[in-house]
Structures are given as C-alpha cells and as structure tokens.
C-alpha cells in the first residue's frame, strides 16, 4: 500500500461560468498519511470544500478543469474512467456531508440505502447486506437499530441522521473518509458526540480522514494535523499543537486571535480582519492575504510567497513569519 492515503500535488481547480473563470483551488499540496486525520480549515470561499470534493471528482465535468496530481492510495484519480471512478467511490473513499437530509435519498429507508451500497460493491446477498447494515448501525450507536433501519431520513433527529450517514459512508469499509463540515449544522451538545464518534471510529478502523470545517475548535478535537486555507491555497500547515500554540501565518494568527482565551471579554473590542476575502475570479499576483494583512510589504504583493518550514513539519506560506511570530497570540493553557 502506498505511504499516502491521499496525495495532492499542485492541485488546481477552475470553474468556468459564462464570461468568467473562478480559480477556486490554486496549487494545493497535501499529503494524508495512512491512518492520519488532517483538518482543512478556512472561511467560505477558501476552497476547502472544493479541494475535498475534487478528491472524489464530484464536480461536474463540463465546467470544471482540474490540473495537477491527485492520487488516492497511490492510484491516479484524474486518469480514471467513469467505471473505475464508481468503484473507487464508496469502496475506497467515502464522504460524509454537512446536511444529511440533503445527502440521503428521502424516498428510500436508510437501511435500503446502506444495503444498496454494500451490494453495489460486493456481491453479497440481500440478507447478508442487511446484517452488515444492522451491525453498522450498532457501531455508530443508533438506539434501537433494528427499527431505525426501516426509518426514512425525515423520521430521524439531526444527530441520528448524521450517525446514519456515517454508517452509510463506512458500509464498504473504505480506508479514506472525507468529512465535509459534518458537525456544523448540529447543536454543540450533539456536535461533541459526533466528533467523539468519528475519533473512535477512526482509531478502531484505522481510517485516514480529511476533515473540512470552519470551526477551529472542532478541528482541534479530531485532527492530528491542521491545514489552513485562504483563497484556494494552503497558507499554513502543521500539527494541531504547533498550529494552535505557535501559528506563523498572519491569517492563522488573526483567525485565532478572534477566538483566543481572553480575546472575547465583555467590554473589550474584538480584533477583526479588515476587508473581505478576495474575488476568486481576479486574484492578485502576490499573496492573496496581503490586502488585509497588517504586516504586508511590497514584496508580499509582488510574488506568491513560497512555503517556509518554520519548524519540522510546520509550514507557512509567508515571507514575514518572523514578524508574524511577534504578533502571535499567547495561549493560556
């Protein structure tokens, strides 16, 4: 087996709309080792979900242009034909989405959908597939699993639907799990249950996971490494610990500062990031964050900053990491 569960090299994704081109992902390098959990965090439009969906090639072929290298367990996904792609999806890579009510088919019972997935990939009997589905429901700890298999998605509560979708994703024992904001629509009390379930399943089944979220708190709960995206690029990447305790990219620092301990004290003003995210159809030649960055110089605006290794395994795409270190938030731990 390949060393990397997912390997992206200089991945670029471009959407074409009448009259414009949207550069959603602009050269992403990401290596997900076997059994590792990487969180991709960023704000809306940062390209985190586009990157994730590209791994399974879920974007419409007609108006999407993907270049670069994309390999799953050493297999070149960009070169796959529809048939091999269908074999890959669900069997080797599975995805869970933010809104299970939209991701599940409303006119079939949840059990039927899991059984269908199992039988598509493995030639087992209806009864065997059903027994597997039941075992999956027990594994994700859905109460009274026997009865829930015959339930329609709308008959379940939000937390239970998310568990059912996780069961569906794991139906064919994939080795790679892609999670696209799986806890964003849930209450905090249910969110933590789902995060703990994902962490436990990941450990028990040895899954490699890419976890996309805009919530740093959720990322810290599950991830070994965190990659921060901005304007379609990974601007900083490192272990969860390094990234939270010693961030070196001004964007990461600004994100953390708005949330850090003591930053949100009644009566004090919140530190904000001025301006708004860049227009993906007209990206600047230099660092995309320069327009909002307090440390930006002319050199930042002139050319794309290279990735700098600030400590082993911790990279930041910034030419002013030394200056950034000085403004990094102090964590009280």
């Amino acid at each position, binding site marked *: 087996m390949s060393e990397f569960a997912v390997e992206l090299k200089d991945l670029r994704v471009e959407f074409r709309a009448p009259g414009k081109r949207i550069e959603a992902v602009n050269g992403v390098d990401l290596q997900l080792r076997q059994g590792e959990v990487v969180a991709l965090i960023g704000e809306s439009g940062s390209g985190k979900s586009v990157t994730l969906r590209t791994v399974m090639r879920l974007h419409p072929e007609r108006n999407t242009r993907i270049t670069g290298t994309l390999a799953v367990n050493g297999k070149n996904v960009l070169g796959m034909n529809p048939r091999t792609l269908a074999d890959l999806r669900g069997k080797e890579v599975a995805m869970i989405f933010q809104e299970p009510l939209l991701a599940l088919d409303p006119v079939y019972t949840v059990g039927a959908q899991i059984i269908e997935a199992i039988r598509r990939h493995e030639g087992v009997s209806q009864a065997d597939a059903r027994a597997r589905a039941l075992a999956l429901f027990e594994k994700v700890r859905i109460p009274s699993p026997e009865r829930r298999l015959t339930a329609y998605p709308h008959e379940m509560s939000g937390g239970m639907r998310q568990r059912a979708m996780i069961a569906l994703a794991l139906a064919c024992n994939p080795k790679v799990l892609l999670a696209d904001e799986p806890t964003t629509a849930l209450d905090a*009390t*249910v969110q933590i249950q789902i995060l703990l379930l994902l962490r436990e399943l990941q450990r028990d089944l040895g899954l490699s996971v890419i976890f996309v979220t805009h919530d740093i*708190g959720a990322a*810290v709960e599950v991830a070994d490494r965190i990659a921060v995206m901005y304007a379609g690029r990974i601007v900083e990447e490192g272990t969860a610990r390094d990234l939270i305790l010693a961030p070196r990219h001004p964007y990461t620092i600004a*994100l953390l500062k*708005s949330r850090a301990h003591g930053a*949100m*004290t*009644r009566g004090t003003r919140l530190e904000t990031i001025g301006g708004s995210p860049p227009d993906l159809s007209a990206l600047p030649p230099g660092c995309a964050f320069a327009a909002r960055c307090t440390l930006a110089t002319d050199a930042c605006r002139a050319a794309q900053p290279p990735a700098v290794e600030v400590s082993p395994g911790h990279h930041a795409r910034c030419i002013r990491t030394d200056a950034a270190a000085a403004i990094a938030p102090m964590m009280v731990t």
Partner: protein
Amino acid sequence: MNDMTTPTTAVDPRDVGGPRQPLMRVQALKKHFPLKRSSLGFGPKSAVRAVDGVSFEIRKGETLGVVGESGCGKSTTARLLMQLIVQDSGELVFDGATVGARELPLRDFRRQTQMVFQDSYSSLNPRMTIEDSVAFGPTVHGVSSRDALNRAHDLLARVGLEPARFAGRYPHELSGGQRQRVNIARALALEPRLVILDEAVSALDKSVEAQVLNLLEDLKRDFGLTYLFISHDLHVVRYMSDRVLVMYLGQVVEVGTATQVFDAPRHPYTRALLRSMPSGDPMQRTTEAPLSGDPPNPIDPPSGCRFHTRCAFAQAVCSQTQPDFIETAAGHGAACLRWQPGSGYMPPPDFPDLAETAAEVAHV
C-alpha cells in the same frame, strides 16, 4: 431628522417608568403549535409545546443573551416578543404598558421593537434596492419618502456601507456580512428601543462576525439600545451579554449575569451545555460527551423536570415533580429541584457545587 446619527446619551423621551422598570416583562408566555390529528381521527390532539410558560424580563440598556439547543423555543420566544405570532396565553409588558392593549397598540409597539434574522438573504426583498428596503418601514409609519431615503442613507453610512456605492444595489449584489449590515440598518430605521437579534451573526464567517459584533456594540452605545441576543454560540453570547437566559424544551431553566451563568452554573443542563463547547486546546481534548442523545421531542416532553431523561444527577423525584424557579443568589436562579427546599431531592456528594464547577468550566 439627522439626529439618528448623533449619539443619544440623554434620557430617551419615550422612557416611561425610569431605568428601574424593565423594558420588557414577559409573563407565563405559552405557545403550542397544534398538530394534525392522525388520519383516522382517534387519539388525543397533540401539539408542539414550543414555548411552555416562559417568564423573564429585559432590563433597560442591557443585552440579554438566550442560549439553548435547537427546538428549545428560543426563536419562537423571539417571534412572540415581536408579535409576529400570537401567544396562546401570557402577557408582554413593554415599559409598563401591556402590548396590544389600548395603552400600547401593536402598531406603536412594533415601532419600538425590531428584529434581525439569521438568514440575511431571505429577510430582504430581492426586488428592492437596499435603500428602499431600509426606507420602507419609516414610510409605512408616515415618514415622507424623501426623509425616509435620507435617513436610510445616514443609517447605511453608520453601519459601514457607503451610500454612494451601495444604496442602489440589490441584496444579491452584496456579501453575507454586507447584507446583515443592511438588515441591521433596516431594524434601526424606526428608532427602536429593543432590538431582537435572532442568530444574527451565526451564518457569518468568523472574521466577518467579529466586525458585525463590534458594530452592534457601537450602535447599542450610540443609540441607547437594548438587545435580546439569541445564539447557539456560547462564546459569542458570553462576549455580548450582560445577563444570560438558558432555555430547555420550551422553559427557562436558568437566568443570571453572564459571569454567574458561565462561571457558576446552577442547573445541570447549563453545566453540560458549557462543557460541550470544544476547548480549542489540543492538549485538552474532550474525552466524554457531557450529554448523550438529542433533545427530547417537544410534542411529548418528559414528565416532572424536562431535563431528567438526560441529567446525570436525576433522582426518582425528578420525574414526578416540576421544579419551581428558585433564586440561588441575587439575580441568579435555576429551575432544578436541587435548589428547591423540601423537594425531596437528596443532593449527591458529587453534585456540582459552585467552586468545583467554576474551576471545571474555566476553559470555556
């Protein structure tokens, strides 16, 4: 007309009862949404008991935060307060006057209370330019359209949208954060005293959220506003609120100052809610979910204390007796049998006490 943009630090001439009288007093508010009978027509008629006997007050000039899981009745309470839906029973008293009575007809009340919703796009008319949207309310209330437009421009400038660039745009031409600024400007166009913010920043990205929160604080100070701030994000509620109200299944379970509720929660539910927030510290990951399962169905809420089915400290008595709301300290109260004298509840030795809890939730 332009006094909208100048700070009003003097006493509001509309203030009737003085600073000690609550701006809004909510008494035993109840709203049940009836469900259709089963197709055969048998069985009792059931209802979603969205708000089931809620009482609280909003003091003048404060920000009252409201927290709770989805389905706890936060948004229904907000809509009842705005009288967008009418309660089954209960009373709203706005600065001493009963809402809807002859002394305070709905039309006058609505001018003084405005609301900002979560979805910035669906709460704006897509066919109206944003200046028209902001000017619409005052026009309805009898301001000439010319004056209303001038005021709309002042307000747009005040919320950070330069009128020359933005006034003529349509909602779809703005970003989410900009649209929410328009909604805030529109809410302020009628010079309200109470603004209800129902998850108003929840759909925004974190960096934009911080900008809007700062703006809300500035506006509150400059216009002498009172906020009811509803959010599921406890960090944001703590930052914004003077006092906090915790709801569970249509009832109020705890009220207190932000410090009291966050640092020394008196209701096991509040405590579990606070502990469900990720710590954000990779060295202190959560190992056990503070609450299991989803909130129960508000159609058929549990008997006795509604939280007893998920409560780690529940005893037999909790399923039989509905707890009263007990004041445990000045301005701090909870609806838990633990604090009710003679309830028959025997506090176990591990029942979270003030000191212990404060230390445990310090990371929140």
